[in-house]
């Protein structure tokens, strides 16, 4: 009904919802030879893309693994990759382990800080983003197009430009300080850009909230309004309808929306660097990026980025499965 497919429809009516999926239908009778050459044709079409993925996606990750498990050339301080798993060395892994836990560990606090910042920022994104997405999906009515354009606009504005905008505003003599001084909330200008955690969290929220809102909007727009109306007709108050009907139905978009903000935030180093640049706010992203540019530490950077990948693999696969399900539901 109101759930429009993600793409426009072909001119002919599509098969009904309950008819078997086209993929499951037996192929039209053809000669065996023809079927084989048909298959070859599709294989040949897919081959360049597959080759590209192997060479520039799978092999690079193996190279990272080989560097993580490889050794250091003491003379040039450059990493030596070890492609043979039987000869892997664990020196980089041990170094990283000592960085992460123990008395002299400097990376442990960075990891904790990253988790705190990202959790705070993504929850703030949700608290600010949900009402806006909910309003546009359910109540915008004829102005839905206008609201959508405004919600989508940040997608088309470079991340750097959006950060630059806040750097301008948060300068010591910028508009934020001037406004706060004018209303006497502060007595002296605050150095917002001089290593403040709150500025970093704020920057992360500002940077990633559009992604969350768009995912939420798409999910909330799919909720059948008659379910909500039924809740109201059966005597639930506004609040209870929301808690008992709308919120359970929006669980999936909330989860995928949070993932779409959390995944990039965990690898973010530029927001932090632009809005603070101080070591006392640095996150995992800054650590990895710093090690990448430091001779002798590149192997440890490889270990850290692989660790991050392993931790994020489960949420990534969950995200893929969830979006697959919802796109199939829409088609």
């Amino acid at each position, binding site marked *: 009904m109101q759930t429009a497919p993600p793409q426009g429809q072909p001119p002919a009516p599509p098969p009904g919802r309950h008819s078997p999926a086209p993929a499951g239908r037996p192929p039209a009778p053809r000669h065996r030879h023809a079927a084989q050459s048909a298959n070859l044709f599709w294989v040949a079409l897919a081959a360049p893309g597959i080759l590209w*993925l192997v060479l520039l996606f799978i092999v690079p990750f193996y190279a990272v693994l080989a560097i993580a498990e490889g050794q250091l050339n003491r003379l040039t301080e450059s990493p030596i990759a070890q492609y043979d798993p039987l000869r892997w060395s664990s020196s980089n892994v041990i170094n990283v382990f000592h960085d992460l836990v123990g008395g002299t560990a400097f990376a442990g606090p960075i990891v904790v800080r990253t988790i705190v910042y990202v959790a705070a920022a993504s929850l703030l994104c949700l608290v600010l983003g949900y009402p806006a997405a909910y309003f546009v999906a359910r109540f915008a009515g004829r102005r839905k197009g206008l609201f959508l354009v405004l919600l989508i606009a940040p997608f088309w504005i470079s991340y750097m430009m959006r950060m630059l905008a806040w750097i301008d505003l948060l300068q010591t003599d910028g508009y934020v300080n001037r406004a706060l001084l004018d209303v006497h909330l502060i007595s002296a200008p605050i150095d917002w850009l001089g290593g403040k955690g709150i500025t970093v969290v704020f920057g992360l929220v500002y940077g990633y909230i559009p992604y969350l809102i768009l995912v939420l909007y798409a999910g909330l727009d799919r909720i059948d309004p008659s379910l909500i109306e039924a809740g109201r007709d059966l005597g639930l108050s506004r609040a209870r309808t929301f808690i008992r009907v709308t919120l359970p139905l929006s669980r999936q978009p909330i989860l995928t929306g949070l993932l779409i903000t959390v995944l990039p935030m965990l690898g*973010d180093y530029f927001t932090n660097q632009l809005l603070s640049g101080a070591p006392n706010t640095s996150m995992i992203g800054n650590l990895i990026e710093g090690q990448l540019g430091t001779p002798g530490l590149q192997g440890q950077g490889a270990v850290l980025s692989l660790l991050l990948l392993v931790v994020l693999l489960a949420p990534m696969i969950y995200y893929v499965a969830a979006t697959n399900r919802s796109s199939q539901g829409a088609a």
Partner: protein
Amino acid sequence: MTATRASRAAAGRTRAAAHGGATKTARWRNPWRHPVFLEGFTWLYLIWSLVPIALAVLFSFNNGKSQAAWQGFSWRWYFTDPVNSVLHNTALHDSVIQTVRLSAYTTVIAVPLGVAFALGINRWRGRTSLTFNFVMILSFVVPELIFGVAMFFVFTVLFSFVHLGTLAETLGLVTWNVSWPAIIVQARLVTIGKQYEEAAADLGSTQFQTMRRVLLPLLTPAIFASAVLVFSSVIDDFVIVDLLSSNVGNTPMSVYIYSQQHGGNGGPALNALGTIMLAMSFVIAVAGFVGYRIMTRGERGDAKLALTTIAGA
């Protein structure tokens, strides 16, 4: 759906009016009243989200070196200033050219690659195709920093004949963006179904003819949308190009802004660069939206659908 709600709202209003005029309580009790607070909140959010950018654009026209204090309008950071304007400063205008170049290279390579991949994988059902389709989707969701680290290492250690610079940037960006056409075209293939292909085959057309004369025309809007998305996401890309660029000559705008601002050399010239990026994206967005609407004319679906498609949702 909208009609139902509108009529209910109208009914609620007449009921409220019947119960002794538009008193405040009646209006408050109307279960279908317009959510004023929610709308106010949404507008506040939009102001917070967009006004700072408008101010940043404004400061690119500042007649002074400050990014915070307005000193009058001028074009100096665009072309009047003989040293520091985008037109006259080589580093600045090289970065504009590098961004356009990378966007063009990436789109030209990634779109055909992704479209062919989508066609092949979607019609070739087998374990290999499912595996690689999964790898493709994985490349879509892996955090950009982790991907960038892999690209950095592969071009500095394994394929070191590809030096950091334009070639490495292009290869990295193609890999990162090839999933747009691959995913969008596959979604469209699912909605098209197999009937047209089967009809063409029954009428004696070969696989190649079917693809060329039946599938590709039906896929044109999806291919166009993915090209728009690839081009614009390369303009905005930062992490990959930051890790894979080697010197000023191959630094695109995003990286230039970042390195100057965080190196303490910020100034309205960076705002001018950001404004140019914004204008480029805006032109592409409008062209993409209009083009997509023209291509899907006569089909079901509306402007909102085209909007979200062009935004990649």
